[in-house]
């Protein structure tokens, strides 16, 4: 092989309390799509932040096109031709596409921005990334996929030779992905090297040329994607073969429903009726982005007010705020863990105890420790110490803390919105094991997910939502994933 575009050699980086990277290696050829895999906490993000210049490694070297480089800060990274597209896209929502694309290097004449020229240049970039939007569109009003394309466009304007994409698919729905993939392929064929981080192995198989697997901060495998199976990759990531799970087919028909959604309506958003959730049952909500799954969960949880006819344990239930839902024995694990699920700067224990502390109670810290000991243990949450800020944990462990919050409180109905977003395979399976454990103890579960295989594997019943309506009910034990997927996309139920 010719001189690699990028080589990271023997990278080591420690933080107070953790070793993030130790012996991490990465080599990417020009024009290659190189996937970077590993469980959360395996050190992928740290390695990429070192590449971008956001962190300085304790040991190790970075070589670009055969020359050793020092990436002292993010600006130096950009000058070295490195562009990182983070999951939380660093675009400015209130500004236009053109403004974002040329932020920091706008075409100016004596300090005055030349709008016309900038818009023309932006038009060119948008065409290159294959976007169907205008330079003057406001970024915050674009779809997530178009924002993603804008972020990639921004990387192009800075003449990036290496583009790192951190889980681009995490925020995209399945039918938005092809546009991004096509662009990745086109950029690679033009000679740009792509480092593609993802948890979804089928994507890796589809887009990747080679893959590097990190485990515990160290590179454990570098493979040609064509030579391996997803199973092999999983084994490399978690260090052993995953056990496939077999579930008993359970019958819930005889049980009194915990929740009955007779009619939940928010004009223009959702119009749902006839969903029953029984104790111990896991009801999956499938659908495209914007199908109204999150809105429905918010309505059940009282976070959005809806015209509703709901029964909870057979009694009329119409929560006006989340507090009422919590008192009624409902818990929500929200979609946006960072923004809605956790108090990131507060400790693990304080987060886990938040919903369970009695309002008139004293000594909350001692109480919290006592209350959360069991839940944290049974969920096998991993942390350095209980007073560690929860934001320092890996995604999987953070999600477990959110779950621990409701375990500590004790709920009869648990609402999960994309519970595995940004969580790696090992932790995903663990999370589902915990959810099954909860369900078998009699908790009713409603789980929204945009990953259909997750639902078919774990839910007892699947409702497909389309444009705000619940259009079809499936029994995943009988019906095939393909059949369900067809309804998810079309919203139409054929004869079956």
């Amino acid at each position: 092989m010719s001189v690699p575009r990028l080589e990271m050699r023997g990278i080591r980086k420690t933080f107070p309390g953790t070793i993030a990277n130790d012996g991490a290696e990465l080599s990417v050829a020009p024009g290659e799509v190189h996937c970077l895999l590993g469980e959360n906490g395996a050190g992928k993000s740290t390695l990429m932040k070192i590449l971008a210049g956001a962190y300085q490694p304790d040991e190790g070297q970075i070589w670009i096109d055969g020359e050793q480089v020092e990436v002292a800060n993010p600006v130096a990274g950009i000058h070295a031709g490195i562009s990182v597209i983070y999951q939380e896209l660093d675009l400015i929502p209130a500004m236009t596409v053109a403004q974002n694309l040329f932020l920091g290097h706008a075409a100016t004449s004596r300090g005055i921005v030349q709008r016309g020229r900038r818009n023309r240049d932006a038009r060119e970039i948008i065409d290159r990334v294959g976007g169907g939007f205008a330079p003057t569109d406001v970024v915050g009003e674009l779809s997530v996929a178009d924002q993603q394309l804008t972020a990639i466009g921004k990387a192009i304007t800075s003449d990036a030779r290496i583009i790192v994409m951190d889980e681009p698919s995490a925020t995209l729905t399945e039918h938005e992905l092809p546009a991004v993939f096509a662009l990745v392929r086109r950029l690679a064929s033009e000679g740009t090297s792509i480092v593609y981080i993802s948890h979804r192995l089928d994507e890796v198989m589809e887009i990747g040329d080679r893959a590097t697997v990190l485990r515990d901060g160290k590179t454990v495998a570098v493979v040609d994607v064509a030579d391996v199976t997803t199973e092999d990759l999983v084994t490399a990531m978690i260090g052993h073969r995953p056990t496939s799970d077999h579930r008993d087919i359970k019958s819930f028909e005889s049980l009194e429903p915990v929740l009955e959604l007779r009619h939940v309506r928010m004009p223009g958003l959702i119009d749902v009726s006839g969903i029953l959730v029984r104790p111990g049952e896991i009801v999956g909500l499938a659908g495209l982005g914007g199908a109204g799954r999150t809105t429905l969960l918010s309505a059940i949880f009282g976070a959005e007010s809806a015209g509703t006819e709901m029964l909870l344990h057979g009694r009329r239930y119409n929560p006006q705020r989340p507090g009422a839902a919590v008192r009624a024995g409902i818990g929500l694990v929200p979609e946006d863990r960072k923004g809605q699920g956790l108090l990131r700067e507060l400790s693990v224990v304080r987060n886990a105890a938040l919903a369970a502390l009695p309002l008139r109670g004293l000594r909350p810290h001692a109480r919290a420790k006592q209350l959360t000991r069991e839940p944290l243990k049974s969920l096998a949450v991993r942390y350095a110490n209980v007073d560690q800020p929860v934001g320092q944990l890996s995604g999987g462990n953070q999600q477990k803390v959110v779950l621990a919050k409701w375990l500590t409180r004790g709920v009869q109905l648990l609402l999960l919105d994309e519970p595995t977003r940004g969580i790696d395979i090992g932790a995903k399976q663990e999370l589902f094991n915990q959810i099954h454990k909860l369900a078998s103890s009699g908790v009713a579960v409603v789980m929204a997910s945009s990953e259909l295989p997750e639902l078919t594997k774990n839910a007892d019943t699947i409702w497909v939502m389309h444009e705000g309506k619940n259009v079809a009910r499936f029994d995943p034990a009988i019906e095939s994933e393909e059949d369900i997927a067809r309804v998810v996309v079309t919203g139409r139920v054929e004869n079956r």
Partner: protein
Amino acid sequence: MTNEKTSLSDRVEAVKPSGMNGQQMLVKFNLFIVFIVVCVAASLLTPEFLSAQNLSNLLQQSSLVGIVAIGMTVVILVAGIDLSVGSVAAFGGMLVAILIGAGISWPLALLLSVLAGAFLGGLMGGLSALLALPSFMVTLAGLTSVRGLTYLTTDGTPTTSTIPDALNYLGAGKLLGIPVVGLIFIAVTLVVGLLLRQTTVGEYVYAVGSNIEAARLSGLPVRAIQTTAFVVSGALAALSGALLTARLTIGQPTASQGLELDAIAAVVLGGTSLFGGKGGVVGTFIAVLLLSVLRNLFNLMGLSSFFQMLVTGLILIAALILNHLLEQRGSARA
């Protein structure tokens, strides 16, 4: 699976004890260390600094701002700000004198005045919480309108009623050589500190300030907690104003102008984050004393007040930079 995981968490534990603690201590106690250093410097520079008379004066001067700053700490912890405290203090100070003038006994007058402050705080906090208006704007409106209300009570003139000796003792007297207002300041700090650290309501204050959306989705009474913070701030502002009236023996409608800025400065210097969720009253308490000691030191050294203002501002900036640097080094982590 468990093998790998244990080994990782073992390493996590193994790295933990070294390196972090010294720096954490420094971050946590840096203000206290600065305070001690300044005190030592002051006693070396001016022998009078450590005299009982001077220390007692110092506490007397810092207490009225201090009481307000404690309330401000609670508001800032819920990621709010209360710009109305100066006006509310003046209103509280006027009200106590007017009520006494109307023949109401002084303890009741004091209580009513504090309750009035709590009500005004609750009104502004409640409005801001309910309508999701920025507390900066609501309390800015409060700053103006409550000041106006205060002037209206006597048409802008000082009160003429006689303040009873017992009330005057609260504002100006000493118990065992310690100013009574100083004791009140200490008591207020302790009570609010215990409220924040040892009750669920306090825990909720930190939760709301840390991430209001997560707190709401955990079923916490978010609006009630926000409102409560402003009730505490309003009540303490009125208490501070009433104690000023007690000391001066007249109510001045022009009193306590700019008090909000002194209070906010102390809270921020004390390490409470303006973004909410981080900090506490102990930092504020020390910061209030530190600012007074500095002022006191300049006075003893005979420096002009213009010079004092300049240097106090510079010290505030220096302290904030120091805090920022220490925090950054202490918590570098993905």
